[in-house]
């Protein structure tokens, strides 16, 4: 028997389908984590499309050096809304969507710890999003950038800025409520046989993410409330004309908004750590190392915020402190990247759409990680701060990283969520168009920034026209790349071939129930007959693979099942006799 069969036979899923959801449930205040998860995932994808349209409008303006498409005021609103939507209405809540759907299933729970709070957290998002977009109809959309630095944000349109503050406050609150729920659920609701060292890496990633959310989002809320007072009540917390300090806002803003980068990437690190081993048919390399590196990133992420302020108002020694802490983040991130490469290395890769997106994630995220270390170096950052180099970097991290991670997640869990398979051919078309489009759009931006093109401008030096034209064409390709996915997803949801319970022969518990899972997930408590990543245990003797520096006799040096880094099965139920210690 293969590992997947062992795990499945220990956890027989009920045969008959029962408790099928009606379509109306998905539009209601429902407390089922799976309904809420789908609500999050679909809502955020709609906002992604809106944000994408805004991005293409920005790129259309930048096709030529002159302002010939929209007015400069509208241009500023476009990039402000693009960033706000992509961050607060797409990537952050998309992570929450996966967490909602997957965490209870992965740890064998019936639902989240606080189902009503969960529904409240979701239902704050659509009104906040509509509020933000309504600013376009009011004719006074926020246009001070998503960073909304005072004093500029205090002297642009008052209504638009107030709407922006309200909307982000609501979204931040939703994010905090979600984070509490994830932490408590992971901590208290695991099946009895699952210690933290046996839970899937996505759960580790969500612990790290939720900790950041809880610690830093309230600071953003504080900053925004004070900014709102400055804007509407005439206080001068941040307004230099009245003796306020605009740099204090920058500190408070980045105290959230840099950790927010990790809120936006850690969940997808988690997804990738799930997807790669399943399709490589090989255990994740260094389970515990990846788990701890998530925590390390979470902690270090809290003490690097002022690297966004190297050219504003901080003294030299503080610049050095934040430079060093920022660079050190490269170390735990490097552990993850190398561990993923080692996971893939020597496996039997099923190069389907989910796997392609996951490997694409590793490949493009690395570019963003490298440019991140460069940006941490103060003397170089002073040159490229607020230029297209930064735009390139952040899109490699957030598009090449987070968005590819989201797509990998869609392809991987679509069969579980809908019970049907996505079309592989169109999935691969989607992947090819996305990878080409994203590199065409964002790779040339590195050069633009270093050569002297600053960001957030509607007019630019004509010498940059050719490169900008390439970027714009790339962004159109990205827009086109979304259509195969949308059509594929809708068509497959209705007519795709039936998936079965465990189409990927995966070992984590969400695959040990029906697809889609029944209303309370499992008939009886699932058990860990195998560890979450025990692929290939059955054919341990077939092939010997040499791992440098390894010694199978010592757990500290072993590379095989004996390794100290492995996530073990539950000794009470372990399929492999050697694991029943």
């Amino acid at each position, binding site marked *: 028997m293969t590992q997947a069969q062992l795990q499945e036979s220990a956890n027989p899923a009920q045969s008959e389908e029962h408790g099928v959801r009606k379509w109306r449930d998905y539009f209601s205040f429902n407390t089922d984590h799976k309904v809420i998860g789908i609500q999050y995932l679909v809502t955020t994808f709609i906002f992604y499309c809106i944000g994408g349209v805004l991005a293409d409008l920005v790129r259309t303006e930048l096709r030529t050096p002159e302002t010939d498409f929209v*007015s*400069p*005021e509208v*241009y*500023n609103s476009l990039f402000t809304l693009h960033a706000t939507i992509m961050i607060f209405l797409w990537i952050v809540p998309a992570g929450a969507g996966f967490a909602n759907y997957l965490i209870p299933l992965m740890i064998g729970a019936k639902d989240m710890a606080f189902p009503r709070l969960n529904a409240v957290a979701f239902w704050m998002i659509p009104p906040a999003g509509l509020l933000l977009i309504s600013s376009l109809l009011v004719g006074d959309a926020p246009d001070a950038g998503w960073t909304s*630095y005072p*004093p*500029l944000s205090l*002297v642009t349109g008052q209504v638009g800025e107030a709407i922006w503050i309200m909307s982000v406050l609501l979204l931040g609150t939703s994010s905090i409520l979600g984070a509490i729920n994830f932490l408590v659920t992971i901590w208290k609701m695991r099946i009895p046989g699952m210690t933290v060292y046996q839970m899937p890496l996505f759960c580790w990633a969500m612990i790290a993410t939720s900790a950041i959310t809880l610690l830093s989002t309230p600071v953003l809320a504080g900053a925004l409330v004070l900014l709102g007072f400055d804007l509407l009540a005439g206080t001068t917390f941040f307004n*230099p004309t*009245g003796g306020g300090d605009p*740099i204090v806002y920058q500190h408070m803003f980045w105290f959230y908004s840099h950790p927010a980068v990790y809120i936006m990437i850690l969940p997808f690190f988690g997804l990738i750590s799930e997807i790669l081993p399943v399709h490589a*048919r*090989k*255990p994740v390399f*260094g389970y515990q*190392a990846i788990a701890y590196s998530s925590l390390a990133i979470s902690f270090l992420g809290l003490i690097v915020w002022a690297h966004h302020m190297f*050219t504003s*108002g901080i003294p*030299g020694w503080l610049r050095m402190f934040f*430079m060093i802490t920022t*660079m050190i983040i490269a*170390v735990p991130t*490097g552990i993850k990247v190398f*561990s993923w490469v*080692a996971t*893939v290395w*020597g*496996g*039997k*890769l099923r190069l389907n759409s989910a796997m392609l997106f996951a490997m694409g994630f*590793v*490949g493009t995220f690395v570019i963003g990680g*490298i*440019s991140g*270390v*460069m940006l941490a*170096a*103060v003397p*170089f950052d*002073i*040159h490229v701060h607020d230029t297209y180099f930064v735009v390139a970097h952040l899109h490699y991290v957030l598009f090449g990283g987070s968005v590819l991670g989201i797509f990998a997640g869609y392809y991987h869990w679509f069969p579980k969520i809908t019970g049907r398979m996505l079309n592989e051919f169109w999935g691969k078309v989607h992947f090819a168009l996305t990878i080409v489009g994203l590199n065409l759009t964002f790779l040339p931006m590195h050069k633009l920034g*270093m050569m*002297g093109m*600053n960001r957030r*401008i*509607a007019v630019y030096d004509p010498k940059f026209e050719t490169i900008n034209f390439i970027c714009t064409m790339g962004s159109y390709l990205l827009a086109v790349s979304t259509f195969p996915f949308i059509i594929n997803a809708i068509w497959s949801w209705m007519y795709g071939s039936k998936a079965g319970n465990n189409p990927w022969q995966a070992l984590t518990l969400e695959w040990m129930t029906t697809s889609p899972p029944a209303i309370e997930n499992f008939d009886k408590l699932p058990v860990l007959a195998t560890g979450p990543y025990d692929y*290939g*245990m059955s*054919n*341990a003797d077939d*092939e010997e693979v040499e*791992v*440098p*520096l390894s010694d199978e006799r010592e757990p500290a040096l*072993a*590379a*095989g099942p004996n*390794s100290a*880094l492995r996530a073990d099965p539950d000794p009470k139920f372990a399929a492999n006799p050697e694991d029943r210690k």
Partner: protein
Amino acid sequence: MNIPSSIWTLIVGIAVTIISLWYGQNHGLLPTAASDEAELVDGLFNAMLTISTGLFLIVEGALIYSAVRFRRRPGDDSDGPPIFGNIPLEILWTAIPAILVIGIAIYSFDVYNSIGGFNPHGVHEAPIGEQAVRMPGAAIAATLSDTPPNTDSNLNQQKSDAAMQDPATAKVRNADQIPQRQNAPGVGVVSPSIGASPDQEGTSPALTINVTGLQYAWIFTYPDTGITSGELHVPVGREVQISMTANDVIHAFWVPELRLKQDAIPGRQSEIRFTPRTVGEYKLICAELCGPYHGAMNTQFVIETPEAFEQWQQEQIANTDSQQLVAVNSADLSPAEFLAPYISDLEIQPEMLHQIHHTHH
């Protein structure tokens, strides 16, 4: 012929090293370096790019090689080898990046010091006032009259006052409307600076220029000569100090060829010092979003020979005398006057504007 894998590793390693070293020097990604400081920054970037290229090639190479070499063969539904990880390997790829980033950090630190990032040494120079030493609890015992007035020097105020001594600067700045930030005692320097490079420490710069940012223009005033200009001209080879602040919102002074950028912040006086080396005309760009016309807020930055600079100064002085530059405060100008320089920048003919008026009527 069967070549052992260790030989392959060696060959790949050498190839990656050679490509990285070559690309680190021949990337063509940076514009002219027009100052001593810029050369140092470029050296740092080249070193980082060399390491990055190597890392990039290794990771991408491993991914692509895996996708080809380790792809599932048709009909093979079995699992791969059960390899769970290896602590020595994890330590190896924790230690190597850690050493690399520490190396980069030390190199950056050195470059930052060489371009004058730690000068003046705010940490040592800012006096810790009596008030700061006082514990909060002591205030309970003290009566109000015991508390001495705060006599700590306000560095920003001093710098602002000094700049306002120059009549030309006083005309373009609104220092009376914006209170200057007080430095916190000890290390709490609030106004950032790139000071003199260590070899020029203690000397005063050859030329000081006051820069004022406002929506949407830079105004340069030369206290030595009383010149007010919309372009920044500096002579080659002499150390220049830029003292900047902003009148309305945050702007940022950026000359890509100098690799220097500094925010100009209302209520703070920021300073940068550099020595221009390469004669030429460059762009001076506002790099911090300052409103809808942010993209148009840039001007000429000219490094010229001392003779040309002298001549330019004479022309400016002559201009100033003849025109009696009245007010640069944009609020006092009629729209036509205010827009005149921009219109000429945009190469719009007066006739065109005239036509636009007609269509509106």
